[in-house]
């Protein structure tokens, strides 16, 4: 049972344009959501997170939107740069001391120069 789903395996975007990466979840207990970026042969790098008490969090070129009623979140990257080309993972956790992250399978973003 996949509780975090990234249904599009890949996305290609022109440099300078917006990249929108989507993520859906099924577990209504999730209250903390994160995005990670992963380059080949490296571990995931934390990008941005959002708590369920918010519907938007922004950090520079990265903005995460959370729609709790739809159990959907998205990562917007504006403007996209070639260095953003990587695999992006969505992750979520439940409240309390549970602390395990449940990951999606990732989306490969390619930013074309």
């Amino acid at each position, binding site marked *: 049972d996949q509780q975090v789903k990234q249904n599009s395996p890949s996305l290609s975007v022109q440099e300078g344009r917006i990249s929108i990466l989507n993520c859906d979840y099924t577990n209504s207990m999730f209250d903390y959501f994160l995005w*990670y970026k992963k380059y080949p*042969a490296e*571990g995931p790098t*934390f990008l941005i997170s959002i708590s369920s008490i918010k519907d938007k969090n922004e950090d520079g070129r990265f903005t995460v939107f959370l729609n709790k009623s739809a159990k959907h979140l998205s990562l917007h990257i504006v403007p996209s740069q070639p260095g953003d080309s990587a695999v992006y993972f969505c992750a979520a956790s439940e409240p309390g*001391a549970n*602390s*395990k*992250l449940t*990951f999606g*399978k990732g989306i490969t973003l390619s930013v074309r120069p």
Partner: protein
Amino acid sequence: EAGVTQSPTHLIKTRGQQATLRCSPISGHTSVYWYQQALGLGLQFLLWYDEGEERNRGNFPPRFSGRQFPNYSSELNVNALELEDSALYLCASSLRLLQGSNQPQHFGDGTRLSIL
């Protein structure tokens, strides 16, 4: 500031052997987590240690075990290795979790374990 460091980078073992993977967390972080990323699968939660204690465990058999040392570094031990244990093993660390707080986990570059 040094990130999460893992050793070795690569490890080759044969079926039935034991493997030991090591992780040093970011300075000041007390929680350490282990994840497995097998080919074609997403990251699967294995274990969480905090203050030397195992706090949570994923859906893995008991031959996956570990420990956390007083300096907060951690070892993951896999006994009786099977072919399907071939995977990338990632360690992450975070600040201590207080009730009701959220802390992002920061990952190392992983240990690639290959079972022949």
